[in-house]
């Protein structure tokens, strides 16, 4: 067995590279809201990892990041899920919670079943469906240990979420902003709800806020925050779905995957409860940069060990297409509601 000192020496290069990438990603994400630090971390990780001819120099350090920094990052990410945001439903409008549930369920099921038709790998499918329905890259990162995802599954899901995020942002700001503000919704409230409901990344919602009337960007972000809370139940759903249909699997291996997934899930759920209902919540803002760096390092480690040859395949393209169709379906549902039941989406108060 390797001694602790040797293990430290072997792990150091991988850990330092992952932390370095995370730091650079965090710095770059500060330049514009459109840039997501988690997305940058995994992309830079894949790029740096592809430049190393012998990846075994990184095996131990990156493994350590995935085993320790990912659960730690998840625990800290729980600070972002504030259950008190659910009370915003009473302020915004009682229908918002129902709309969020419908939105998340339709998007998740649409992507999941389209990917089934395309015969996409189950883990990639679940991560993409989860990321599309909830909050993009962060949801993919939270879901990855729950489904015991491979590095390539995470990278494929991240690519799908990023491409669809950019396309949906373009469509939303170029076409739909005019559609909502000019023809249907003169106050722009429904457009704000639309952005909060359909854009997958918080940064995209914030950037779309520039296309709204003053004060409505907060409404859009609050809708997005309510939607993000569903990461907790959906995490357990994808954990169970990941185990369905697996026949040729050792029962010991299956049990360990389920146990690990539930541990991670409850760790995340517990942290969210703790930071919502105890005074620890006062430290959320102080913890945010730390969890971004820690979680970023874990994602950089995933990128560093990703085999790029397995990612650039037809499967990645089809997976991205299904995520886009999922987005188009929820857009159609939302527009249908605005057209056929204009009074359904009512906003009580503008922030």
């Amino acid at each position, binding site marked *: 067995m390797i001694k602790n000192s040797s293990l430290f020496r072997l792990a150091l290069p991988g850990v330092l590279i992952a932390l370095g990438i995370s730091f650079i990603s965090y710095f770059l994400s500060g330049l514009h809201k459109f840039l997501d630090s988690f997305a940058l971390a995994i992309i830079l990780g894949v790029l740096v990892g592809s430049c190393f001819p012998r990846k075994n120099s990184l095996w131990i350090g990156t*493994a350590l990041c995935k085993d320790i920094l990912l659960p730690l990052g998840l625990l800290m990410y729980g600070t972002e899920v504030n259950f008190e945001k659910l009370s915003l439903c009473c302020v915004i409008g009682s229908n918002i919670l129902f709309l969020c549930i419908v939105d998340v369920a339709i998007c998740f099921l649409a992507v999941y079943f389209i990917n089934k038709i395309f015969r996409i790998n189950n883990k990639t499918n679940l991560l993409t469906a989860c990321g599309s329905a909830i909050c993009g890259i962060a949801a993919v990162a939270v879901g990855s240990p729950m489904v015991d995802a491979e590095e390539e599954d995470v990278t494929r899901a991240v690519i799908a979420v990023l491409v669809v995020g950019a396309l949906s942002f373009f469509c939303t700001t170029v076409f739909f902003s005019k559609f909502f503000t000019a023809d249907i919704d003169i106050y722009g409230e429904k457009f704000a709800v639309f952005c909060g409901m359909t854009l997958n990344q918080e940064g995209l919602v914030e950037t779309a806020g520039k296309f709204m009337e003053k004060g409505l960007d907060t409404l859009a972000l609050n809708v997005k925050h309510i939607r993000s809370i569903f990461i907790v139940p959906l995490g357990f759903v994808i954990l169970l779905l990941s185990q369905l249909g697996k026949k040729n699997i050792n029962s010991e291996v299956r049990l*360990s995957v389920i146990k690990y997934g539930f541990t991670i899930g409850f760790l995340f759920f517990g942290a969210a409860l703790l930071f919502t209902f105890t005074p620890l919540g006062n430290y959320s803002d102080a913890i945010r940069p730390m969890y971004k760096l820690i979680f970023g390092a874990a994602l950089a480690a995933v990128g560093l060990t990703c085999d790029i040859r397995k990612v650039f395949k037809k499967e990645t393209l089809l997976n991205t297409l299904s995520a886009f169709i999922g987005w188009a379906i929820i857009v159609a549902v939302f527009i249908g509601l605005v057209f056929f039941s204009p009074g359904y989406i009512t906003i009580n108060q503008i922030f």
Partner: protein
Amino acid sequence: MSGKLKAIVDVVKARSVFKNLAVALLSYKIGQDVDSFTDLTPDDPDLEAKLIEEAKKILKTDTLSVSGISQGGEAND
């Protein structure tokens, strides 16, 4: 025949708290990325024996039962 190498790696993952680290150490000891083994990876008796030996050290156990493989790395069936 194929899949025995992956079965050994799966057992190591299942029995480790830090499964990525355990697999990384196994890869380091063996000198190849054992996480890339799939059900289609052809069986290799020499590598199986070596894997089992290193897996025992990593898991700190004297015995390692993997379905279809005996202690020495040979197939049970």
